[in-house]
Every structure is written in C-alpha cells, then in structure tokens.
C-alpha cells in the first residue's frame, strides 16, 4: 500500500473537515430511524410534522389526514431537538471528545450554563424565505431529506430517488446562483 500524495491532496481539498463526522453522524441518523422502524414498522420522516402539527390549530381538510399520527410526530420532533441539545452538551461542549469528530469553524459558539451552544451566521431572510419554500416543497413533493433521502432511498423507492435527484440538483443550482450573486453568509 503506497498512498498517492496527489489523491490525498485532492481528498483534502474536497473534504476539508474529513469524512468521519459525516459518516458517524449519518450512521446515527440511520440508527435512530431503525430504532423506530424495528419497534413500530414506521419509516419516519421529519417534514410531515409540519402538516400534522398544523392539524391542532387548523381545520383545513388537508391537515386532518394526519390527526392519527400528530401526537407521535410531536414526540419524534421533541426527541430530535433534545438530541441536538444532547450533542451540544457533550461533544460540542468538549465534555466528550473523539478523533472522529471535526469541530469546524462556521457560525458562532456561545455559552449558557456551561453548555457550548452554536448559532448560525446565515442571514435571517435567507432562513425565512428558504423555510417557506421548504415548507411548501416538501409537502407537495411528499418528503424531505429524511423521508425521501433516508427512508425512501433506503427502501429503494423510485419515487424517492426521483425526488432526491430533483431537490439535490435544484439546490446545487440555487446555491451556486446565490453565491455568484455575492450573498454571504
């Protein structure tokens, strides 16, 4: 085994933060999905929560089909938020260290009660306008990065593969245009 320095350099350029944090994080995302699936048979996606939660406050017929699942979807989402907090309280705070975790330099860190929290530099208008389109698009398109991208692709669903290819291609184009227009961060 001789490591090729040209290949190593190319990998360092394409993966400036390594790949282990991505791979380990992905395994955990998959594991969370599997836990729920093993016990319940449900391949859980994250975006249906938006419509199912709206059924608590709106009597529009579109939302009523999610009344049966809205309670557990709320629990699932609360778990995701708490999982993010658990990550912040351990790895992000330096309480747990691992060679598999590359901290990165984006955004800003701040501390509350000994827990290192993180905040984005991406402008609020981008998050808000992007959020509106995400809210419309995932619901019309029947899924998001977890529903289509993880559960659907994991199910070898042609519909989900088409969905993922569509949103991945369009997102890359959009981000390139936005960057070319000089919008940063």
């Amino acid at each position, binding site marked *: 085994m001789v490591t090729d320095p040209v290949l190593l350099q190319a990998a360092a350029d*394409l993966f*400036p933060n390594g*790949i282990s944090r*991505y*791979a*380990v994080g*992905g395994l955990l*995302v998959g594991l969370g999905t599997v836990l729920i*699936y093993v*016990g319940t*048979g449900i*391949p859980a996606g*994250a*975006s*249906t929560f*938006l*419509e199912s939660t709206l059924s608590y406050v709106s009597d*529009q*017929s*579109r939302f009523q*089909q999610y009344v049966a699942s809205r309670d557990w979807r709320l629990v699932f*989402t*609360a778990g995701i938020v708490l*999982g993010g*907090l658990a*990550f912040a309280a351990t790895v992000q705070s330096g309480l747990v260290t691992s060679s598999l975790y590359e901290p990165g330099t984006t*955004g800003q860190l701040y501390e509350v009660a000994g*827990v290192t*929290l993180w905040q984005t*530099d991406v402008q*609020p208008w981008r*998050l*808000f*306008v*992007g*959020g509106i389109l*995400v*809210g*419309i698009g*995932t*619901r019309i*398109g029947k899924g*998001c*990065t*977890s*529903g289509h991208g*993880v559960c*659907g692709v*994991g*199910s*070898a669903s042609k*519909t*989900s593969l*088409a*969905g*993922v290819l569509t*949103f991945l291609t369009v997102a890359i184009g959009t*981000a*390139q245009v936005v960057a070319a227009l000089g919008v940063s*961060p």
Partner: protein
Amino acid sequence: MSDRHPLFKPLVFVGGIVFGFGLGFSHMARPEVVLNFLQFEDLGLPFVMFGAAIVSGIAFALLPRIRDAAPLTGDPYERRLKPFDRNVLVGGAVFGVGWGLSGICPGAAYASLGVGNVTILWALAGMFLGAYAQGYWRSRNHARDTAPTGAD
C-alpha cells in the same frame, strides 16, 4: 391506532434523540455546512444522507424476513413507497430552491434549535407558513377532486 403500546412514544422519543444527535454530530444542523456542500466546497453531506439510507435500508430489507409485524404497533414491516406523480418533481424543485437558499431542511432545523441556533426560528416559522399555505390551497382544490390521496 389510538391505543398503542405504552412503549410506543418512548421508543419514538429515543429514536428522535439518536436521530437529532446524529444531525448535530454530522453538522447538518449548521446551514453553512450544507451550503458549503451545495457550493462544492466540502463534499461530506452525501456520507450523512446515504450513510443513513444504507443503515435504514438494511433494516428495511431484513426486518420483513425476520418478523411479520412490529411489536409495538402490530403494523406489518413495509418499505416506504409513495406513488409517483408530477407533484414529486414540482415539490422537489420548490424544496430544492428553499434548501439551496437557506441550507436548512426540516429534520436538521429541529436539531439546529437543539444545538442552540435560535436564529433557526426564522426557518421554522417559514416552514410552518409554507406548509400552511400549501395545505390551505390543496384543501380548496381537494373539495373538487374526490380522488383519495396516497396512504401515509
């Protein structure tokens, strides 16, 4: 479906925690990192999405061979298959513009709130607004269109 096993919600909760921890660890809860991928500055993101898809895919393939039904619901183990129609492409494209503009998708946005990113509330407010707008519009149209929607 209303009276499910007492462990149903606790399991969903624990699954959500592991899911959210993974989104934090992978930095998908950071919009900047997603945008860096979409601009080809850090190609790590597919390791998250496809890594997770491989792990869940193994379970989706194996479980139906081992058991007939899930212990907490009695539901059969099935793959996640949704009917294909034009909406998948139209909705996917709209989602793509939003994802490319903001670097945020639903699951990662919830986890982002957990890692302390209070600014993400702008994205969450936007998502609910967008989901409500499409629901309002489709509720109107659905009244005329009696065909049942796909199961979920």
